[in-house]
């Protein structure tokens, strides 16, 4: 006897779905098949069992992963596109699934949904702002309504009204779904990150041992044992900051930490050291990223939490041989290319947008009477022009960085 169960958002919180499946198998429902399109789980009635289910996501995998091959730890239940379902037999398996792929999938969905929500919020606040401006400017906003018994509606009008209500209702449902998805994925990802080891190992991503209290900093600065240097917009030529940091170390200024956004550097005065620095850009930072670098002797000075500006600063002290973060030219150049394009992808559309805005303001001039030109009308294109020049300068810097990396030998 088989039974179907509908679970529409099962993939949002895989750990919860796992528990749900464990519960059902205890109640005597054995999982047979999963329909990913209809989100239907098919069960067979059998004896009550204490089973431990594992669900995982492996992008592009059509079948089962390699680590279950021995057959001592897991048995296969079923798989759908990218997802697979297992039953864990052994209590202490030799290998466990890595949830890294699942976390990055969830992050991607969360990011897209989050962006759409942000756009919605901006739209609403813009609307509210306009209402406020009008109320303040005109004094009041009146909405007039005509008594309904005085007007006769045609069929088309009624139909379009119903359609309008339906569309808005659908829109409302979509918004609810987006908010639900966003928060659900957030909760689920936090749990999964702990499973990945991210949550556990992330503690060493913050250089806690080098964080000083404000009093300590003040005391050290008074004794001239600590100096703080701030660099503005250094992200666009990371290789120059690497050189600068290395030079500072040679002069006896040892970097201890950086500020939270990464624009300030704290140095302690000490002995001259040979340290190799590397500014790394990685969008998919998993626990293994930090552990691999740490084991290879690199010390983390800074890592950004944001996914877009995924920059980490690593340093390694050496005596003779200069340690290499990238041991081959190809990967090094590819890294620089990714670095460059990430910034260009943001700056170029922004430049285009501002240039278009300048064009619009200039056309406004053509229609304006010379008597009522306000200072704002002259000032705003100028401000925008400065912005364009600045953005172009950043683009130029980041392109120069890439060409420098490309030209230099390893």
């Amino acid at each position, binding site marked *: 006897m088989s039974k179907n169960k509908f679970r529409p958002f099962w993939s949002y919180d895989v750990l919860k779905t796992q528990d749900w499946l464990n519960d059902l198998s205890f109640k005597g429902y054995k999982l047979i098949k999963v329909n990913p399109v209809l989100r239907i789980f098919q069960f067979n009635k059998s004896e009550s069992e204490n089973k431990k289910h594992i669900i995982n996501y*492996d*992008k*592009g*995998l059509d079948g089962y*992963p*390699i*680590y279950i091959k021995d057959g001592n730890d897991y048995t296969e239940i079923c798989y759908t596109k990218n997802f697979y379902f297992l039953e864990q037999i052994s209590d*202490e*398996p*030799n*290998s*466990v*699934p*890595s949830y*890294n*792929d699942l976390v990055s999938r969830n992050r991607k969905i969360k990011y897209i949904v989050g962006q759409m929500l942000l756009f919605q919020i901006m739209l609403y606040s813009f609307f509210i702002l306009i209402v406020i401006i009008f109320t303040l400017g005109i004094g009041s906003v009146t909405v007039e309504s005509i008594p309904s018994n005085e007007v006769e509606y045609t069929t088309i009008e009624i139909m379009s009204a119903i359609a309008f209500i339906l569309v808005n209702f659908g829109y409302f449902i979509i918004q609810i779904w987006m908010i639900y998805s966003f928060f659900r994925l957030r909760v689920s990802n936090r749990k999964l990150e702990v499973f*990945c*080891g991210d949550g*556990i190992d992330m503690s060493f991503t913050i250089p806690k041992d080098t964080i000083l209290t404000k009093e300590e900093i003040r005391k050290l600065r008074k004794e001239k044992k600590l100096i703080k240097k701030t660099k503005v917009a250094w992200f666009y030529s990371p290789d120059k900051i690497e050189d600068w940091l290395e030079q500072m170390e040679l002069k006896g200024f040892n970097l201890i930490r950086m500020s939270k956004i990464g624009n300030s550097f704290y140095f302690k005065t000490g002995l001259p050291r040979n340290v190799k620095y*590397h500014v*790394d850009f*990685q969008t*998919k930072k*998993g*626990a*293994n*990223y930090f*552990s*691999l*670098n740490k*084991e*290879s002797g*690199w010390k983390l000075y800074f890592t950004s939490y944001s996914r877009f500006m995924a920059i980490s600063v690593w340093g390694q002290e050496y005596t003779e041989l200069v*340690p*290499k*973060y*990238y*041991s*081959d030219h*190809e*990967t*090094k150049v*590819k*890294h620089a290319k990714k670095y460059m394009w990430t910034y260009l992808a943001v700056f170029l559309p922004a430049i285009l947008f501002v240039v278009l805005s300048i064009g619009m303001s200039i056309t406004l001039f053509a229609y304006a009477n010379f008597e009522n030109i306000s200072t704002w009308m002259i000032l705003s294109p100028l401000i925008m022009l400065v912005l364009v020049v600045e953005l172009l300068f950043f683009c130029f810097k980041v392109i120069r960085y890439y060409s420098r990396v490309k030209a230099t030998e390893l």
Partner: protein
Amino acid sequence: MAKSIESLIPLSETAYYILLSLNVPRHGYGIIKYVEKLTGSRIKLGSGTVYTTLGKMSKVKVISVYQDRDRKTVYELTVEGSKLLELEINRIKIVYKDTLYQEGLFNEQK
């Protein structure tokens, strides 16, 4: 899989040695250490290179990623990966054979 494994050949020296070191499943740092030992310190892989290359390889399903008992990430060759390595080993064997033959001819001329 987006690409056929044949299109990945020839592999870069880094990629080749990473695959070669995966005769048993290894951790990221284990790969670096093993390659260093295998090549007599000729090749010291940088952690950034290894991380990027491993990421690329798991994307094309040449290797598979999971975690061991201590929740440390482990990399293992997949069936596709073994096939790729075999193809590359055969290619390098031919290169080696041709090199030896030509080297002999060059030496005769001297």
